[in-house]
């Protein structure tokens, strides 16, 4: 639960994964819990040889002594018995009972879960309905019912708590086993003629063991608490035997005269359970990192900007003017420079394609413009983004908010995940309208329906009340476009809006975007990995590689005669209709990892015409002609 980010990250940085124990210790809270638990367990183990009075010897003359009096460090109870001695003996009982209950629940529950998950079908059904039935009872009530049947007593309380906890194990383990028994290695074992028990305990069990351990470590504190509770009610340990719960129960009668008799065992239960919970959380974080809450950093409203250098403000009438934009992600000590200095201008109404392989930094560039890159781990470290004459990297969150969806609108890739699943599409468009225009609900609704019609959604009025999951992929993307158009934006940033769609739907959506942009005069920055899409839609194209633009120019010119070797390779990858024999060159090699960029040209490793001087120094994006630029020291010329 309490995942300390600093220590956790340190552990991840090491090349090999450190031992689980080291990871556990690296978490400060778990380490503290472990220390505390170690002390308690050591005391409990040593109790028989410690110089303590017999916990059951009564001495009425010495009754209800306050702590610290007469050699009774924690005082005495109503029968004059030494409380320290009773506390330690009681702790022994409580730990043994809690751990035993956990073991019984874990063994029985895991066996049920393994059997149900592995056998499947009818056995699974019968077993799990039984488990459901047990879970239909309120937790403690069932334990009470079982004690009522078996009769009060510590052992019976232990059984009751075990039975009540069996469902947790059975359910968790069944889910895991169900997944595992469909996997290849289980099939392989089956084909090799191994018997079911051998497969179950030899192949499946080792894989679910971490889950069993995690479930145990997170429930053992709970079970100690519950057995103490039953003893407190007088249904567990019976005198003269005592556990922490029954001591507390006896002390309750003396609450007003001698509070220490009940306070002390309570403190012990609390400290014991808390230390176990701390260790349990630590174990869970180590064995099941997906559940670790600290790993899920939630992004804030806007990307953090920490600029070392701010470039001069350009004198331009462009809708968007980007100068030396740099964005990086930091995880642990590694810094991924996703965007490493991008310059880009968009004139009013202009459509520019930003092309590159996945990981080239094109989407991060798009998101950086209005600071939508998640922080943590993203930070914008340099550059200037001028929209509407102002540097948006210096703007307040509120100014950004007014720009977002207003003058500048986004359309994202996968419309299924980008639309909110719990609101109707109408509500979501109305929200976009009302975020920027002071309209009444009714007016905004009318506008939303009009927008749905504009993106050619048939029977817009009926679709207004549809939820995203009720629409097809193409319809959903149309809704996203309608939402982007809500406030007549000057600039639409479309981040791979057609990638998640079928080819025929892609063409429709592209046609729609082209028509709308022409009709409305909005500039479009279109992020894609597909040159075919670019040639359909864009006036100019910018090619990105390893976080920087390597070539930019009018679409036709670049497509006809690519100047950068990378651009040429990229265009060669596009299949052409009617030329089935054309060789589809996949580009050999991989882009360089952006946390370890080489000096010189980032493409050098994969370049067919590389020379030693390519790797020597930074290569600038130099003009090739008046409307084209390329980042290469020996670009292909028209003639080549």
């Amino acid at each position: 639960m309490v995942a300390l980010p600093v220590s956790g990250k340190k552990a991840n940085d090491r090349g090999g994964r450190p031992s689980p124990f080291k990871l556990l210790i690296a978490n400060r809270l778990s380490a503290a819990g472990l220390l505390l638990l170690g002390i308690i367990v050591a005391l409990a183990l040593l109790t028989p040889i410690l110089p303590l009075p017999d916990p059951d010897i009564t001495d009425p003359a010495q009754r209800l002594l306050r702590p610290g009096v007469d050699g009774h460090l924690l005082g005495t109870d109503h029968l004059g018995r030494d409380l320290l001695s009773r506390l330690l003996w009681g702790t022994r009982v409580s730990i043994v009972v809690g751990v035993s209950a956990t073991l019984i629940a874990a063994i029985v529950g895991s066996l049920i879960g393994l059997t149900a998950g592995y056998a499947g079908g009818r056995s699974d059904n019968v077993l799990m309905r039984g488990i459901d039935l047990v879970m239909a009872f309120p937790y403690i009530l069932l334990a009470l019912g079982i004690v009522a049947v078996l009769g009060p007593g510590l052992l019976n309380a232990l059984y009751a708590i075990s039975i009540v906890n069996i469902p947790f194990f059975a359910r968790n383990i069944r889910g895991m086993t169900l997944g595992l028994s469909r996997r290849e290695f289980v099939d392989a074992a089956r084909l090799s003629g191994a018997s079911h028990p051998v497969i179950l305990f030899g192949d499946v069990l080792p894989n679910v063991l971490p889950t069993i351990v995690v479930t145990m470590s997170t429930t053992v504190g709970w079970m100690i608490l519950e057995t103490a509770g039953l003893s407190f009610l007088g249904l567990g340990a019976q005198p003269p035997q005592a556990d922490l719960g029954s001591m507390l129960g006896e002390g309750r009668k003396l609450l007003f005269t001698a509070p220490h008799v009940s306070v002390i065992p309570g403190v012990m239960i609390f400290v014991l359970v808390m230390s176990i919970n701390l260790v349990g959380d630590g174990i869970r974080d180590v064995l099941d990192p997906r559940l670790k809450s600290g790993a899920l950093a939630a992004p804030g409203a806007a990307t953090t900007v920490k600029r070392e250098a701010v470039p001069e403000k350009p004198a331009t009438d462009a809708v968007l003017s980007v100068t030396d934009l740099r964005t990086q992600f930091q995880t642990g000590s590694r810094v991924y420079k996703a965007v490493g200095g991008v310059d880009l201008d968009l004139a009013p109404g202009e459509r520019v394609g930003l092309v590159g392989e996945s990981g080239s930094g094109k989407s991060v560039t798009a998101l950086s413009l209005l600071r939508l890159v998640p922080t943590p781990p993203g930070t914008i470290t340099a550059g200037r983004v001028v929209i509407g004459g102002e540097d948006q990297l210096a703007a307040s969150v509120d100014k950004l908010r007014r720009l977002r969806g207003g003058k500048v609108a986004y359309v994202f890739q996968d419309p299924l995940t980008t639309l909110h699943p719990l609101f109707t599409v109408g509500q979501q468009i109305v929200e976009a309208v009302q975020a920027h225009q002071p309209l009444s609900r009714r007016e905004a609704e009318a506008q939303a329906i009009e927008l749905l019609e504009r993106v050619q959604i048939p029977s817009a009025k009926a679709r207004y009340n549809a939820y995203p999951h009720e629409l097809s992929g193409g319809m959903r993307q149309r809704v996203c476009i309608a939402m982007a158009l809500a406030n007549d934006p000057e600039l639409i940033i479309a981040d791979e809006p057609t990638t998640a769609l079928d080819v025929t739907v892609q063409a429709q959506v592209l046609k729609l975007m082209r028509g709308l942009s022409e009709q409305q005069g909005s500039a479009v920055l279109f992020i894609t990995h597909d040159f075919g899409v670019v040639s359909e839609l864009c006036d100019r194209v910018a090619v990105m590689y390893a976080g920087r633009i390597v070539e930019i120019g009018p679409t036709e010119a670049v497509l006809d005669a690519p100047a950068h070797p990378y651009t040429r390779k990229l265009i060669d990858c596009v299949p052409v209709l009617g030329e089935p024999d054309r060789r589809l060159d996949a580009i050999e090699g991989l882009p360089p990892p952006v946390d370890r960029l080489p000096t010189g040209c980032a493409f050098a490793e994969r370049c067919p015409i590389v020379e030693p001087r390519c790797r020597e120094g930074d290569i600038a994006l130099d003009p090739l002609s008046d409307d084209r630029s390329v980042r290469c020291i020996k670009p292909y010329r028209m003639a080549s």
Partner: protein
Amino acid sequence: MWIYIGKRLIASVPILLGLSVIVFAMMALIPGDPATAILGSYATPENVARLNSQLGLDKPLVEQYFIWLGKLFHGDMGRSYALNRPVADEVFERFGATLILAGASLILCSIFGLIAGIAAAVRQFGWTDRVVTFLVLIGISTPSFWLGLLLIMLFAVELQWLPASGMYAIYGGGGPLDLLAHLAMPAVTLAVVATAVIARLTRAAMLEVLRQDYIRTARAKGVSERRVIYRHAFKAALVSIIPVIGIQAGFVLGGAVYIETVFQWPGIGRMLVNAISTRDLLLVQGGVLVVAASYVFFNLLADVAQTIVDPRLR
């Protein structure tokens, strides 16, 4: 929607029947002869046999079950021998008191759990987050019966602000204010663990949701951050929070056993503990059945609420 609720209602019938089988089996499993238990160990064999046939205990178990179930439908849960009154009367009277206590706790833990969880998630890694995380750890590790004792010592004995026990004052009691004063400590004590559990889960659910693409979409269209958190993120998080609140309903109903004992609250939990000690098994049977059935109902409510929030489940 209504079709779904109907379906869900029908689906809970087998669960209720299963519960009744378990509760009936529990009592049938008990070693010893109820007639002997009632008449005492000096009873003559003839008298025992006569009582056994009077109670229908000489019939086969399956037949006994259906007779018992038939009586249950008519509100007949048998008679408590220790209290000498019908079990149903006693159980429902006590259950009312438990519902007041459990309901108040459920309201408290939902409100504070949600607020703490959201606050922690929104300021992840900040001070609020650390304080909430720490309090959650304390909350889930505290034995509620002990916390109750501490509260009594502080608020009833030391400060004398609140009454230490009972539901109404014995002299001149009654009225909602008196009830509220008596309810405050037990309801808070009972809510502590559940609040911690809900806060922990709400935090995790909010953090998970805040990373989703649709939250980025909301920000990209210029929705205010307040609205992003409380409308977009919270509604999505509710889908996984509601079932946990349903589980807490069961937890609070069960945990009432401790709290009612500590605060002498005249609810069904304290009745059960006494009935177990006096071996008044019909009373235990009736009590367990009513509480378990009400838990099924709470879960049904949680399911319906979840369906209202999430249209994909309809």
